[in-house]
């Protein structure tokens, strides 16, 4: 397997580094959090409308660039490193793949061009954000029922933790259809019977909302999934989202380590920079190894996923990447606090921003142990 970057991919990476260094990062995150909106509108517009990153995962026939999972992973890693607060993940990494893999042709035509153009913020309302989609993808729809009602449906249920749920213009809701099967429903925030409660989160980089559906009436066209594709498509979309999240976590780990290296090179105790103490060198070196290995796992899984050759094999590798990246991110953030000493415990210094994101992201889309259990079920069936 060739893991070299093409010159085009190098360009994406360079551009991402340049842009995100300038516009995102801990200071930008603090400003956005204090402004109360959760994210910086102008930054999001630049990402979607000027840089065209929202088009990456969308097929060309719907106005996208069809770059695939590998490019997405490169970009997501940089976003994690910059602690980017943006509807990008929910829109591009969660909602878009769901439409791509499970959507009807009509739904794709309706929504994907707007997503690609950076004009639509979308998200997916999973019954449990931390839940798993194996062995049966229907599990992520367990909390919502869709009752056929005339030509359309009525939706009832609860989505306790929807990423960017309070700002998204489109919420894709996997639901169990009464009488059989699962479907994905397109719901807009204005729908009557829909209650959206923004949640206060400890990780300020990614807002969540608690959404209730009380007899939300939708038309037949709101069923945006193709019945033949929905089960496999849902699983594949969530796998791709988990992969992007793993890539982000590698970035979070790298960002935490880089910040730590900069601090410990300056801080002097016992007449020397604390970076010169072997206990500290070894811990940083250990982090570097863990990060590189997680990065390798992400890149390999992303290549396989991008090839589309063997989604089942790719799914397992994504779980491997996710388990390694989750651990690397948390460890790097934990060490960032410890190696900063007292200032690492303050609001003013940055380690807590990485620490909170690492823990929060680690719980989304299956925790590390869930992913290991998934691997175990295949590699060593009891």
């Amino acid at each position, binding site marked *: 397997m060739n893991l070299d970057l093409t010159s085009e991919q190098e360009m994406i990476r360079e551009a991402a580094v340049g842009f995100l260094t300038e516009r995102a990062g801990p200071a930008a995150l603090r400003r956005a959090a204090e402004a109360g909106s959760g994210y910086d509108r102008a930054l999001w517009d630049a990402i979607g409308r000027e840089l065209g990153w929202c088009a990456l995962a969308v097929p060309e026939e719907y106005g996208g660039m069809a770059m695939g999972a590998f490019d997405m992973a490169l970009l997501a890693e940089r976003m994690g490193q910059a602690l980017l607060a943006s509807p990008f993940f929910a829109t591009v990494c969660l909602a878009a793949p769901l439409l791509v893999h499970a959507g009807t042709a009509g739904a794709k035509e309706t929504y994907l061009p707007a997503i690609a153009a950076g004009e639509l913020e979308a998200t997916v309302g999973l019954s449990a954000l931390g839940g798993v989609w194996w062995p049966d993808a229907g599990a992520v729809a367990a909390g919502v029922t869709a009752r056929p009602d005339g030509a359309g449906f009525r939706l009832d249920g609860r989505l306790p933790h929807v990423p960017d749920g309070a700002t998204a213009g489109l919420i894709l809701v996997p639901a169990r259809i009464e009488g059989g099967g699962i479907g994905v429903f397109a719901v807009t925030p204005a729908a009557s019977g829909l209650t959206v409660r923004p949640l206060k989160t400890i990780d300020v980089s990614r807002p969540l909302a608690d959404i209730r559906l009380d007899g939300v009436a939708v038309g037949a066209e709101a069923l945006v999934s193709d019945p033949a594709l929905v089960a496999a498509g849902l699983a594949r979309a969530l796998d791709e989202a988990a992969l992007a999240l793993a890539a982000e976590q590698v970035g979070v780990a790298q960002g935490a380590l880089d910040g730590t290296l900069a601090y410990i090179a300056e801080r002097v105790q016992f007449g020397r920079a604390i970076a010169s103490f072997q206990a500290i060198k070894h811990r*940083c*070196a250990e982090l570097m190894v863990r990060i*590189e*290995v997680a990065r390798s*796992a992400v*890149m390999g899984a992303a290549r396989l996923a991008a090839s589309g050759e063997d989604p089942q094999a790719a799914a397992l590798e994504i779980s491997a990447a996710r388990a390694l990246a989750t651990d690397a991110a948390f460890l790097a953030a934990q060490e960032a606090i410890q190696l900063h000493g007292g200032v690492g415990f303050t609001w003013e210094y940055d380690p807590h921003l990485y620490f909170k994101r690492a823990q929060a992201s680690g719980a989304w889309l299956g925790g590390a142990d869930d992913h290991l259990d998934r691997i175990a079920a295949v590699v060593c069936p009891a």
Partner: protein
Amino acid sequence: MTANDTTMDAGFRREVAGWLNEHLTGRFEPLRFRGGPGDGDAFPDLRKEWERELAVGRWSCIGWPEEYGGRGLPVPLQIAFHEEYARAGGPGRLGHIGEGLIGPTLMAFGTERQKQRYLPPIVAGREFWAQGYSEPGAGSDLAGLKTRARRDPSTGQWRVTGQKVWTSLAHVSDWIFVLARSEEGSVGREGLSFLLMPLHQPGIEIRPIRQINGGEEFNEVFFEGAVAEAEDIVGKPGDGWAVAMALLGFERGISTLGQQMTFAHELDLVVEIARENGSLRQPAIRRRIAQSWAGLRAMRYNAARMLSGFGKADLAREALGYKYYWSHWHRDLGKLAADVLGVEADVVTGDPRRERLQQLFLFSRADTIYGGTSEIQLNIIAERGLGMPKEPRGKA
């Protein structure tokens, strides 16, 4: 390990597997899966014959340039070879130190005469080499070595006196390359010379050392006025450190990458035994197996990243950390194997599969010591990979 091998040359793999299937039989049959790390003293004579068998099939030194008798194969095919070799249960390579370490060093630094004298017997599987670096007082701090070499002004010969230790396979080898202090009063990296010496000579005594698993794979080697011929110095007198370090760089883990196949075998065996004895039903064991699997996949992709870095001057970060990662991964697998065996890990049963896991448990303890201990690896990673301050040195 099969899903992603499509980019490798499937035809080449078939050729290797076919050849091994035909030749690793009959009198060589007992060698299957033997002679690996921890089992290095198994069947030394038969394994030497096996090296010659490989040579006849032109499967030795496949990465060497053709002018030196190799096949000049690119790195991906070399890895494919190592993997197929491991898959077929090919025995531990007695020729490894010649092929992987001293051969490339001579190609880079050797005289014409040295290349002509020493390379062909390595390719042919007729001469075997040992590495004489470590000494009782110089392990991690190799530059503290004391073995002395003095030139006899009348003959030009070098006379070597001192002691090497942990010298793998010296007792079954023909030659040893020795790093020795050739300048009176020199310290550290200065004043060292790199010498090639026949092991079978009056001034050399080899005493095997019994190791953790009961085997005797490494040795103490005592030198008492032992001779290296004048023309058997590699590089100039005083250049020994540079040559010795270059030798460590040549390997760059190509055969180590091939060993991932062995790792995969070992993990399969752990799962097999865990299924048989019921420990596979324990969630904690299952998770550790999954963790191990995830690490193995990551190492595979890490290797793929390293490949694009081969030939570049600086080791990239993913390459710098590789030894540290695989050695700890492997040590963890050894512990997992022992935990899966439970009480049986302690019992000598004669069952070859259990024995293999017991050996894995014991011998994987060496992985984090030889070839640069983990602590030294972390120093190197911190300093070269992260640009952190260098370790202070005490006064010698």
